[in-house]
């Protein structure tokens, strides 16, 4: 019974990762940036399902709210200020492809002596006693049943403070780059009369 459940979990994660690879190929080949952004939103949705299948429910929550929600909307906003299509490229991509294949082959060679997926006795899970300490002492020391929350907010609270500083800095950077003033678009000859009327009514 136990073996069966583990095999099913591995199977689900494998199928979902393959789906992600196919989606990535779609993002590479699509010329329309809006379609690529839509596919990347789908990518985030599927990736959060993978996090659930890997037992990382808090990560799945964050990925759903931040990855699928906010980043898609940020990308759409950036596209609404810039262009929608990607120009065809003249030069060949062969050197890039060779570099990527070589790096990938080296990395795959590096994985050959890695512990297999789901191995409870792998060095990452057993050797540093830190994770065991968190799992055993966290209810007594912090009183929070969710270990991820207790580590994030209590044991490694300064980490989270630093993360907040990074997000704050990024917000300041975006505001100073784009400004708070209302941006005015230049007149686009391809607009239909209806869209032009709408723009004029917005500007006034």
């Amino acid at each position: 019974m136990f073996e069966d459940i583990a095999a099913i979990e591995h199977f689900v994660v494998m199928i979902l990762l393959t789906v992600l690879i196919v989606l990535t190929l779609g993002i590479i080949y699509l010329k329309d940036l809006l379609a690529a952004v839509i596919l990347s939103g789908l990518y985030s949705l599927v990736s959060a399902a993978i996090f659930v299948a890997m037992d990382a429910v808090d990560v799945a929550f964050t990925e759903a709210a931040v990855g699928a929600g906010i980043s898609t909307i940020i990308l759409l906003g950036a596209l609404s200020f810039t262009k929608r299509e990607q120009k065809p490229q003249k030069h060949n991509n062969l050197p890039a492809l060779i570099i990527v294949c070589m790096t990938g082959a080296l990395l795959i060679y590096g994985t050959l002596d890695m512990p297999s997926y789901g191995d409870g006795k792998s060095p990452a899970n057993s050797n540093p006693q830190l994770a065991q300490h968190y799992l055993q002492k966290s209810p007594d020391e912090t009183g929070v049943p969710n270990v991820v929350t207790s580590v994030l907010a209590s044991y490694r609270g300064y980490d989270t403070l630093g993360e907040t500083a990074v997000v704050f800095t990024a917000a300041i950077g975006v505001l100073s780059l784009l400004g708070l003033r209302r941006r005015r678009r230049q007149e686009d000859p391809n607009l239909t009369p209806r869209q032009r009327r709408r723009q004029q009514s917005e500007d006034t």
Partner: protein
Amino acid sequence: MYLALVIAVLVALVLVLTRALLGPTIYDRMLSVNSAGTKVVILIAAYGFLTGRPDFVDISLLYALINYITTIAVLKFFEYGDLGSGAYQEDDI
């Protein structure tokens, strides 16, 4: 039973993704993204039951809402070419 449900959801997800990759118009892609979001909601709910701990159904609840917000944002971008415009004119039906 849950295994059959999970496999059915995965099959449906793969079919929907095929439409998202093939889709001739961008509206087909949008439709299949919306549909795939529903499939992912079912997948997460069923996965909780499969592993015997159905406490994490909140995630699928969150998904149902996020999926809707994404769809509406993209469609607003289609119609107005902008996310911020609140102008809704009388010739809209």
